[in-house]
């Protein structure tokens, strides 16, 4: 290849990277959720689910309950609490295409389902591996109804169908790596974040193992606790570093947003992040006892 072509391609790649970085969305605070419909304050909320129309559900973890809300045109309404004895300490949530809420409960260490009426619809029963060998640390659902489960005990990602039958097992590297969350993109690529090593691993749909996607991110993310994929980007919530780190799907670092603080727009040990199709970001701002909603402007 002629030398000037190489230079041109290199320059174009640099320009593309710079453009992508420049276009990384900026989280701008719009509104925060502080209490339920009766005015009872949130306490250490760790999870938030969005994306099913206007529905919004908060895992009000410290109060041991779920809050069901609506978010329409920048206004939050509702806030009906839902206390379920089967899910006493909810930490991660996701709504599926049928309006069923999936809940990871840290106390019972199981994933439960809650139907649209608010009734408990049973735990996810993992089939194909000894159930006692599975300790879910995080999960994600894809559009096809498959469940991607981060198994802390087995140090692996399990891909299950909606009935809980294991379809695929992807082992993760063991200590010193420590995985806190996973995510799956529309192409079926699974991503997992190593909080201890500051690294992201990925496994394409047909892959049999994870490979390292991005390492050496410890200077940019202290202890990532939550991972979300949306519109060609990975959003890593830096729990101990109090911020959100944006990466490309190839692992390139695109920026870091938010910072430690108590005022609105700042976060303190943030938990789960949920991004909806309308360009809103919902962040469980755990030790600020609130959920913050941001608009994602480019």
């Amino acid at each position, binding site marked *: 290849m002629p030398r000037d072509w190489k230079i041109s391609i290199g320059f174009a790649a640099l320009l593309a990277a710079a453009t992508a970085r420049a276009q990384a969305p900026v989280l701008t605070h719009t509104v925060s959720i*502080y*209490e339920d419909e009766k005015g009872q*304050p*949130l*306490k*250490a909320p760790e999870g938030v689910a969005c994306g099913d129309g206007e529905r919004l559900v908060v895992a009000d973890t*410290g109060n041991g309950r779920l809050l069901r809300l609506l978010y329409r045109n920048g206004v939050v309404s509702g806030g009906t609490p839902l206390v379920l004895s089967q899910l*006493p*300490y909810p930490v991660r949530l996701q709504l599926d295409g049928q309006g069923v809420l999936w809940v990871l409960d*840290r*106390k019972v*260490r199981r994933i439960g389902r809650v139907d649209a009426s608010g009734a408990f619809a049973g735990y996810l029963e993992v089939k194909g591996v000894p159930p*006692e060998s599975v*300790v879910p*640390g995080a999960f994600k659902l894809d559009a096809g109804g498959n469940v991607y489960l981060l198994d*802390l*005990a087995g*140090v692996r990602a399990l891909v299950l169908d909606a009935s809980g039958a294991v379809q695929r097992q992807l082992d993760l590297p*063991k*200590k*010193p790596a*420590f995985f*806190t969350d996973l995510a799956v993109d529309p192409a079926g690529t699974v991503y997992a974040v190593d*909080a*201890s090593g*500051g690294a992201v691993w990925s496994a394409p749909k047909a892959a049999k193992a994870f490979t390292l996607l991005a390492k050496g991110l*410890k200077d940019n993310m*202290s*202890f990532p606790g939550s991972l979300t994929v949306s519109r060609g980007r990975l959003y890593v919530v830096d729990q*101990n*570093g109090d911020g959100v780190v944006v990466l490309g799907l190839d692992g390139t670092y695109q920026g870091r947003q938010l910072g430690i*603080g*108590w*005022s*609105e727009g700042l976060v303190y*040990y943030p938990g789960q992040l949920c991004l909806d199709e309308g360009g809103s970001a919902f962040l469980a701002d*755990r*030790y*600020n*006892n*609130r959920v913050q909603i941001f608009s994602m402007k480019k």
Partner: protein
Amino acid sequence: MRSRIAALLVTLLASAMPTAALAQAKFKLKPGAGGQACLECHGAFADQLRKASVHTPVKAKECTGCHNPHASDHKALLGADPSRSCLACHAMVPEGAKSVHQPAAEVRCTGCHDPHASPNKFNLVKPAGELCASCHAKLTQAAAKAGAKHRPVEQGCTTCHDPHASTSAPHVLKKAVPALCVGCHKVDKPVFAKRHFGYDVSKSDCVSCHDPHGSSRRGLLYDKVHSPVAKGMCSQCHQAPGSAAGFQPKQAGVPLCQTCHGPKVAQILSKNRVHAAALAGDACLECHSPHASKVKGLLRAEPARTCGSCHGDTMRRTAAAASKHQPVADGDCTSCHDPHSGDAPLLFAKASVLDTCGGCHDWLKHASHPMGEKVKDPRNRNLRVDCLSCHRGHGTGYKKMLLNATQTEMCTKCHEKYQR
């Protein structure tokens, strides 16, 4: 292409030539003129030549092997950067070394060796044992005090360790454990099997039970021994000696520990938040040794190192903090946190921040800024004012672990009307 190959050959030949010979040619010195000429001014240096161990170029009076007699950009008129001077002849760290001694990794050769001469073997700046102790004092002092001593330690550290690097083992060991150990300890002797209760431990990790540097316990066991090990009841956790499964544990993970520590495990699992390390992978064994340890609670390492193996970011941030919380500086994470589980945020051992801090600090009992459940934080209506409203628990870059450089800056975050 031919010219490149020729250049490469010249470079290779040049690198193969002794440094002294290169210097001789470079400075066009008369034969034998090198060191002799230097000694005319550096007369006191003649004493060096009478020492027991003299560096080869010095012995050959080839001072220009390392020094430039005219001028240099480096200290002591060295012909090259001090690290490169040594490496020109001594490549002590092989490619792909599994472990490297810190001074060797940093090419701080003169930390251990005198570049001219020394009364000690290998030009060491101190006698070998004393030299190692100058950095590894804690280890050597403990070894000296140990009631049961390991003979190789008395013979010198280099019996087991390579002082520069190891291609095959961690901790710059000459061989990995157990290969290193079985070099002396004959595993096929009946007494060996008897002392290990009939188990074939020839492929086991000897240092999971034994302290290779010495111990106050018989059999060089670490000071803290898991009760079944101390009682010789290995089969409480492992398959019976001679079984087909070898030395495998009867069960994996928490269920095995639960057979004896049931109430403790139940208490841990009853809390809202179980430390992920207690559930992940090897569960209890992520932090604890199942056999013996130097550290209380059978921890695999000192608490700060154990916690830091996952929470390295916190350790690094704290290390960089100008003001540190005393328990953090002492590496005592469990002063505030429950390492297993808890109901409180951040796995605090007590119910709230005020309870946690109040265990040592009694400000609230006499005089303090208003704090507690009735005092709302003006920055966030869902927060109450507590110690962490102004301080960070581990430390900060500012005095008294405050969040801001000045008190004015910090106080006016809430007391906005005083902002200037």
